[in-house]
């Protein structure tokens, strides 16, 4: 019965059944077909085709399989399928730029790609299996890939101190420092220095209200013939230390009134010896004599001045102190005299050394600076300001805090504002939805936001209080990189344990040396055990390098530097006692364990050794390509004419064994000479006792100065 009924099933029903079966099968087939057509499978096939066209096919396809690949590192929270398409990442032979993406090998970086994954540095979505989802901002993923131009930001997420491999990040961090961003913003790992802008407690005794008005209106004051501006203190950079704030005329009037009235500690005019005044007051050449002294003291090692040659205005000199081209139109003479005598009594945290002045020099240099570094037109466009009214001063005092002046400048009795600007600890970790773009037409991504904000703060937020900066393209990119590296702590606990924090070393010795060290601010240019500047030679092992007698004579008269340098050690007019204190301390405390003076007796070298050394120097190793003796030779390394007086014999031997062990990163190539050759060269150098000897690492000073 049932079979009969089955057999009688209406034809329509059977057709319907057949169709639905076909449909069902087709529906089932959708999934595998879809899978076969996936984008990543296309790249898998392409890779095989590509590898077959290369000579090392077998190597390239050794680990190949047709499924999806991924890097899985649970402790770093990495599950990256990027290698499914980027299949040549670890193939050294695919490094060349001619290899098409996505198959090119990863550059040989210090980290192994397979140990770190991809999104740890590149961002993007590692789990994605489509290029768009992996690379771009989509609804599902708000952290797009970081362009390679900014990739150094990822190094900075873990590495707090500068790495030699990341020039852009280092530059960006330096710009953050130079522009005193930490005055208003919280920056991870950056300590607020003791002084950002000058203390303004007594600014009224230093400058006039007219000058303050002009400065607030436009701090960029030096124009070259083409009308481009060179700015305060910073050579070749488009930014003065003090940026231009968006202030109205009324606000500038009020601020200038308030600040010019700050004169709690009037400066009594310095009384020069009558003998000096009688001798110099009427002399027509007092300014020329002042200029000679100004040059001899090497003020331009720290300060720059504008020089116009053939219609081109350039700033010459260093950028440690402010630029001085128009300082004569800025400060009054009594203040300048007092300042030069004792800078720290006016600004306790100033980096200016306290020179030893004779009354005569002080008078000559003050007159020179006040009369030659002037610009009669500087203040000509300032309206008549009159006497500050109480209302103006009251408003000025309020604005000083409200406009953020107090974030960088201290005034005794005015509370310093902390966290005036937004906390930037996490600015590089923000997702697009956390950013406010306002009416700005820029693309909605983090990099565009950061750049719009620092180029024109008002463009994304019309109420922004941030001042207006001017950046070169390179600095903008560097600054963006540094900001992107601030991601507010680590994304995974695994990474947090691997962070290399920023190291801040300090070197502030106590005692007599400490006093002299602070007086002459040695650390502004020289480095001591990792603390200090990079402008001049590192003095960490100076006691091993130079004999005491040479040190004393150099400190008393540091005029023996090579003539090609523009930045040199200033002539401080040290007393004999101070020079002896420094030389004794260096000799005692700044010693390298690699240099043992007892092992090498400088009187024990023979004339034959010296003759052999001369030959090695001139013929075999041709040291004259970099070093000068007498009048001939190169000027990459220091002048060796006085090497016998300047360098200890034990230092020379240790240096020739391994220069980088004594001064890390020094230019001298390490040759690992045989001991007899080292001895012979030392013997030869000890015979050089000429007068034109250069100091240690002169070229390093030049190098640092140009940076």
């Amino acid at each position, binding site marked *: 019965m049932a079979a009969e009924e089955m057999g009688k099933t209406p034809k329509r029903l059977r057709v319907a059944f057949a169709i639905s079966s076909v449909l069902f099968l087709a529906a089932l087939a959708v999934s595998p077909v879809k899978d076969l057509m996936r984008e990543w499978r296309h790249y898998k096939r392409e890779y095989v085709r590509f590898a077959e066209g290369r000579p090392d096919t077998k190597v390239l396809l050794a680990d190949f399989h047709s499924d999806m690949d991924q890097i899985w590192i649970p402790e770093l929270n990495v599950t990256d399928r990027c290698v499914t398409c980027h299949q040549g990442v670890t193939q050294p032979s695919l490094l*060349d730029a001619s290899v098409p993406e996505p198959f090119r090998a990863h550059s040989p970086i210090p980290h192994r790609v397979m140990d770190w994954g991809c999104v740890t540095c590149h961002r993007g979505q590692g789990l994605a299996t489509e290029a768009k989802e992996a690379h771009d901002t989509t609804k599902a993923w708000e952290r797009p890939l970081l362009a390679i131009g900014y990739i150094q930001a990822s190094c900075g997420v873990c590495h707090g101190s500068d790495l030699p491999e990341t020039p852009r990040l280092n530059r960006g961090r330096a710009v953050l420092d130079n522009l005193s961003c930490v005055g208003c913003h919280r920056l991870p790992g950056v300590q607020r220095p003791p002084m950002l802008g000058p203390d303004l407690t007594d600014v009224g005794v230093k400058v006039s209200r007219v000058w303050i008005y002009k400065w607030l209106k436009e701090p960029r004051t030096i124009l070259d013939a083409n009308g481009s501006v060179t700015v305060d203190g910073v050579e070749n950079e488009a930014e003065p230390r003090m940026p231009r704030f968006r202030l109205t005329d009324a606000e500038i009037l009020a601020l200038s009134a308030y600040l010019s009235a700050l004169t709690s500690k009037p400066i009594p005019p310095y009384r020069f010896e009558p003998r000096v005044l009688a001798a110099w007051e009427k002399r027509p050449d007092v300014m020329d004599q002042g200029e000679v002294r100004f040059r001899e003291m090497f003020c331009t090692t720290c300060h720059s001045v504008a020089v116009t040659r053939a219609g081109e205005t350039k700033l010459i000199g260093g950028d440690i102190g402010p630029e001085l081209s128009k300082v004569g139109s800025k400060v009054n003479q009594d203040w300048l005299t007092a300042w030069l005598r004792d800078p720290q009594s006016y600004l306790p945290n100033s980096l200016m050394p306290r020179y030893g002045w004779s009354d005569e020099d002080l008078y000559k240099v003050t007159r020179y600076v006040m009369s030659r570094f002037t610009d009669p037109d500087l203040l000509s466009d300032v309206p008549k300001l009159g006497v500050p009214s109480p209302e103006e001063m009251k408003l000025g005092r309020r604005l000083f805090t409200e406009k953020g002046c107090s974030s960088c400048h201290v005034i005794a009795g005015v509370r310093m504002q902390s966290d005036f600007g937004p906390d930037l600890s996490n600015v590089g970790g923000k997702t697009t939805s956390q950013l406010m773009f306002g009416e700005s037409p820029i693309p909605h991504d983090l990099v565009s936001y950061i750049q719009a904000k620092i180029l024109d703060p008002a463009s994304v937020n019309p109420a922004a209080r941030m001042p207006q900066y001017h950046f070169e393209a390179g600095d903008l990119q560097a600054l963006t990189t540094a900001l992107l590296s601030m991601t507010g702590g680590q994304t995974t606990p695994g990474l947090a344990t691997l962070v290399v924090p920023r190291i801040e070393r300090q070197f502030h010795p106590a005692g007599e040396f400490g006093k002299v060290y602070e007086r002459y601010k040695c650390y502004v240019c020289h480095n001591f055990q990792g603390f200090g500047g990079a402008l001049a030679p590192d003095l960490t092992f100076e006691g091993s390098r130079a004999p005491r007698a040479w040190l004393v004579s150099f400190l008393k008269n540091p005029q023996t530097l090579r003539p090609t340098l523009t930045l040199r050690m200033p002539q401080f007019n040290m007393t004999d006692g101070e020079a002896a204190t420094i030389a004794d301390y260096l000799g005692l405390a700044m010693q390298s364990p690699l240099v043992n003076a007892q092992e090498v007796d400088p009187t024990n070298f023979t004339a034959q050794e010296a003759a052999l050394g001369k030959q090695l120097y001139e013929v*075999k190793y041709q040291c004259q390509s970099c070093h000068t003796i007498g009048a001939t030779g190169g000027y990459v390394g220091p002048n060796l004419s006085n090497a016998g007086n300047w360098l200890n014999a034990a230092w020379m031997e240790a240096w020739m064994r391994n220069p980088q062990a004594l001064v890390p990163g020094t230019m001298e190539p390490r040759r690992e000479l045989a001991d007899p050759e080292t001895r012979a060269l030392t013997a030869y150098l000890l015979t050089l006792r000429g007068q034109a000897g250069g100091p240690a690492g002169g070229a390093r000073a030049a190098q640092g100065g140009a940076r």
Partner: protein
Amino acid sequence: MKTRTAAAIVLLATLVSLSSCRRERAPVKPDPLLNAYDTEADWNNPDHILPLTYQQAQGKRVFYEKCVWCHADSTPAGPSNRSNLNPTPALINDGKVLNPMSDGYLQNMITLGGSALGKSALMPPWGKTLTQNDIRALIAYTRAVAQPPYQAPVSPRPQYSVR
């Protein structure tokens, strides 16, 4: 009836094929400088900015530390030592001189110095100061800034197929 069924089948087939079809994405052409690890201006034409990869950028750093003093006409410190030397060292971007030298030759030259290769001893050996990786990076940088541009030698054709 038949037409309806046929229409339904065709419709379904179209839907199925549509869902499995996917537009082949054209590869995005990035701005070459946005995707450069670092950049260097062409020495002969400062407006022409050359992109550098990570490796080339490391070579640039080593170059400006150790080599620039004699292999460039201007240095970070101002004057160059190049004019002081006889024979005059090649400029690092001089493609006419450096392009014909193979990577291996340059590696030896930098590692062992001029005298080891029968050239002037004015060129010191750097093999104990720099790592081999540094030297490879240096060569990569040289190739990146070479004018006329450097052409890598053509690699030989494959000798076998996997299929």
